[in-house]
């Protein structure tokens, strides 16, 4: 553990310190405002340190090598036209189990934004909930996901994933104390433990192959497996086990059964948490392990991801058509979107297996863009549901939303924005996500004789994907229609709290902004995807001189482009 490692983990540490403070202080000082304020402050401070890292490590200004390369690329010396903004360094070498690259940066930023929204949503919980405990646990879950994003080592990765899961069990239990809630908690707990065990079993094969838990060494070992040796089968087995374990978190279809029951049984805030944090964690871990640490397995991996994507999005969307309970409907919607994200993974794995996907529509980038758009719209929807409900009378069925277009125009407008974005209607964030995914699937050109067959699979994937988007319009529009085309049946007070209202507005603004100006997120996602492919290392971080000194990192970032 060196100073550099600690420096890189500062954002996570801020959150853990705040969580501990809230846990301990909450025993002595009851009250919700003060702890909510501290939690929000913690997320903001964490974001501030992350920003410091980002500018210092990835955007070293007045970097002689970067300028030289930029000049060579664009012809004129030192002059970079505003049309071609300078590009960041992709990856920074840090001793220890961390992989500090733009991929982890992207995910951590996303987690902090979503985390802020979650904390805002939690500010006005039911009176019988211990607010400090809830907030502290929430911060821990967020920290877990941030650790997953930068882990370069199986043990740290697993710790990160568990740091998402274990706080989630507590949050589910804290949320509401009814029979349904307890059933949901128990169901989630046992299935989650099982999935962790399956995943660990998969990890153990990787450890057996490499003799190390570091992803870089595993990459060497798995990449060096002799085709004829029987060990290849262990690698494949490991792949399937890891997919099964993480598939639970992504709610891929055979492992999705818990989601509708759990979402329905718990509060809207917890459902929002469940629909974003584990899913993001699972996808990030899959990218890190499968597309990075298991070279040679990509062909199996993309077949697996492709079939899972096809089944998951179709089942999620079709079953969602018949749902009346809003949380259950959103559970199926979240399953379906998990399927869309798997399209990105399939494309990424196929790309890593040697397919020509030079078009710039990268699978990982598409997945990263999509999950950002999805996370904003979904958490926003749940925030709106919280905002409209009351502690004793939460929004349960879709029909409860009737007539809010007239009574609560801004809430209805936000919800409509979320629904259209989830459907993928331009110009909202979801459209650009779908553009990335479908263009990625269409641009796969696999080499060899089986390449054509593979292409047809990906075209089928894209066609099924768009048909699913049309199916999903059926139930998303139903929500919009209920809000605007029907008159209200019950008097909604909309006293779910200003926090939830603020969270909702924040999400809506971001969804619209990303829709109108997708470039920043697109560049971020593309750069993150580029960096995820690098073997790690890159520029060495030297805190004292405030400048990365390794020339090869810059060259790499240019070569990767």
């Amino acid at each position, binding site marked *: 553990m060196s100073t550099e490692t600690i420096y890189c983990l500062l954002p996570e540490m801020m959150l853990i310190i705040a969580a501990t403070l809230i846990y301990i202080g909450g025993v002595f000082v009851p009250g919700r405002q003060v702890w909510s304020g501290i939690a929000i402050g913690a997320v903001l401070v964490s974001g501030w340190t992350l920003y410091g890292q980002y500018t210092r490590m990835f955007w070293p200004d007045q970097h002689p090598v970067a300028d030289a390369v930029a000049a060579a690329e664009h012809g004129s010396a030192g002059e970079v036209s505003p*049309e*071609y903004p300078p590009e960041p360094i992709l990856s920074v070498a840090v001793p220890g189990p961390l992989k500090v690259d733009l991929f982890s940066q992207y995910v951590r930023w996303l987690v902090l934004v979503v985390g802020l929204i979650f904390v805002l949503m939690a500010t006005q919980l039911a009176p019988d909930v211990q607010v400090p405990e809830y907030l502290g646990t929430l911060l821990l879950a967020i920290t877990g996901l941030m650790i997953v994003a930068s882990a370069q080592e199986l043990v740290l990765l697993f710790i990160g994933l568990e740091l998402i899961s274990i706080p989630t069990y507590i949050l589910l239990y804290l949320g509401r104390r009814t029979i349904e809630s307890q059933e949901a908690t128990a169901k989630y707990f046992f299935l989650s433990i099982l999935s962790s065990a399956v995943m660990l079993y998969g990890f153990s094969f990787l450890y057996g192959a490499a003799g190390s838990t570091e992803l870089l060494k595993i990459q060497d070992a798995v990449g060096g497996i002799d085709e004829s040796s029987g060990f290849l089968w262990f690698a494949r087995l490991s792949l399937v086990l890891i997919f099964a374990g993480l598939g639970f978190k992504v709610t891929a279809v055979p492992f999705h059964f818990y989601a509708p029951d759990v979402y329905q049984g718990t509060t809207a805030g917890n459902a929002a948490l469940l629909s974003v944090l584990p899913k993001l964690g699972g996808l990030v871990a899959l990218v890190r392990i499968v597309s990075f640490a298991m070279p040679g397995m990509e062909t199996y991996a993309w077949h697996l991801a492709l079939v899972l994507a096809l089944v998951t999005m179709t089942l999620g969307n079709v079953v969602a058509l018949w749902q009346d309970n809003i949380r259950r409907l959103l559970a199926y919607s979240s399953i379906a979107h998990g399927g869309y994200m798997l399209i990105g993974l399939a494309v990424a794995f196929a790309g890593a297996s040697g397919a*020509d996907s*030079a*078009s*710039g*529509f*990268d699978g990982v*980038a598409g997945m990263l863009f999509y999950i950002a758009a999805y996370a904003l719209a979904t958490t926003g929807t749940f925030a709106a549901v919280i905002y409209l409900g009351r502690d004793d009378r939460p929004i349960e069925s879709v029909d409860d939303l009737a007539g809010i*277009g*007239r009574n609560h125009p801004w809430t209805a407008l936000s919800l409509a924005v979320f629904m*259209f974005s989830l*459907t993928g*209607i*331009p*110009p909202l964030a979801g*459209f*650009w996500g779908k*553009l990335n995914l*479908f*263009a990625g699937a*269409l*641009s796969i*050109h696999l080499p060899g004789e089986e390449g054509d067959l593979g292409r047809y699979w990906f075209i089928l994937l*894209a*066609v099924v994907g*768009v*048909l699913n*988007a*049309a199916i999903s*319009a*059926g139930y998303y*529009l*139903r929500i*919009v*229609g209920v809000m*605007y*085309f*029907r008159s209200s049946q019950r008097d909604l007070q909309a006293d779910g709290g200003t926090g939830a209202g603020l969270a909702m507005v924040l999400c809506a603004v971001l969804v619209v902004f990303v829709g109108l100006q*997708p*470039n920043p997120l*697109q*560049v971020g*996602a*593309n*750069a993150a995807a*580029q960096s995820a492919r690098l073997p790690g290392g890159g520029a060495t971080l030297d805190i004292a001189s405030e400048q990365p000194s390794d020339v090869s990192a810059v060259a790499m970032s240019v070569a990767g*482009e």
Partner: protein
Amino acid sequence: MNWLLAAILLPVAGIALIWVLGDATRGPARWIALATSVLTLVLALGVVRSHIVQSQPTAAGEKIDLAESFADSGDPAVAVDAAPPTFDRYWIKSYGVEVRLAFGLDGLSLWMFGLSALLVFTCVLVSWEAIEDRAPTFYALLLLLETGMLGVFAARDIIVFYVFFEFTLIPLFFLIGIWGYEDRRYAATKFFVFTLAGSLLTFLGLLSIVLWNFYHGAEGVLDFSFDGVAKALAVQPIPAHLQIWIFLALFAGFAVKVPLFPVHTWLPLAHTQAPTAGSVLLAGILLKIGCYGFVRFNLSMLPDASITCMPWLLGLSVAGIVYGALVALAQSDMKRLIAYSSVSHLGFCMLGIFSLNRLGVQGGVLQMINHGLSTGGLFAVIGMVYERYHSREISEFGGLARRMPILAFFMLLFTFSSIGVPGLNGFAGEFLLLSGAFQRGWAEAPESWALAGRVISVFAVSGVILGAWYMLWLVQRVFFGPVREPTHGGAHHEVHDLNLREITALVPLVVLMFWIGLVPQHFLRPMADTLDPVAQQIAARIDSGEKSTVGPLLARETTGQEVAHVD
């Protein structure tokens, strides 16, 4: 100051103003909407004018002989001032992906752009009294729809086109769903899902074109711009068998939008249920986006597949023409009758476009404008009747000409335009496109479908007769004969003829109808620059296909026929 961009964004500014100034009543909202739509119209006309001025010197040499006969030759030479405004800036620029926010007009989009601005003006006036509930929202959505429509036609980039193409669904969904009639919720959802399902496949098709061009094209760049893709594909066309698949993907969306015969079922429902403004814009502009897409993408970028699919498309168009007309004859609801007449008329547009020759394409595109004027006007007039009587049942009316002579006058004009009475715009368009269809069906059809070609062209003409039948019959039943008025809703003594506002809404349409009818050359000439190369390219492909044995289906089917004869 970019006038084109200003015209597209001005309605959004109007929405902001409605939001700032408007209260819960309709008072300020409708005035703001009116002012915005007038200003937008002025800007749009300015842009259109700059194009006409520019197109005059180049188009002078090459004119269609037939179209020439309509023309008045003496155009006053206008001093060429500034070049037409365009806008081009990157929207996404990231690691090889580049989407440009590019706007500009050409001969194909020019008139539809202007017509969109004009019909919104009409719609604001038509909705003046009719919309009372949530009026500020209504006008905001109307202006939002205007931005969407202007954007569709001004887009010069495939992604930008698609963004606006789908975006138009949102405001119209709300317009139908909130202010529509009894069955509005079902109609709105059906309209949205139907169109979306098709247009998403179109999206995949468009992406395939771009990506194919990226991997195999002459330049090898990821280029989303219309001009870039069209240019690259002219050098290095997509293989014929792939073109068919991409054509079908594009067809899925555009055919639903047009709507072509088997996928038209959403249209009568949406039209009947929509408020008057929604019907006017749906018929006048939004359906044309489908035709526009066919010309812009299928004809320009997939010429071989267009040739191969031509007989099928012609067949579907004629099926739509005849079916729409026959069903229109059987309607008892005025609005539904006009809706089915739209199916028939859009069949004419598609017939012309897929005749794939100069006359046909020009006629088809001109007919897009004509139909927007005449059917837009018809929906507006019927909306005015409904406003007065709260009924659309034909059987409940009679002799309205005696009660409301001015309204009857406009109704009759729009009817004459719709059925193609010479001197009005419908005749110019229908004559051109039917000439094109006959040229294709009789003179140019290959052996394999010579008979089908003749049947198609003859049946197409029958559509004109049927059109005259159902429209004139409608006018006769509703406006002539003994006075008969609905007894339930409307209070009879209040019924008054058109006021100045309503006349103002309709007069621009009438002026344009006469203008196009008397001097179609004014409108055809700016189109020629864009449409002639399309027709020429296809003619060249047909020629090369007939010469080579591995050419597109036209040639191949001829040989198949010969083999069959030998057998």
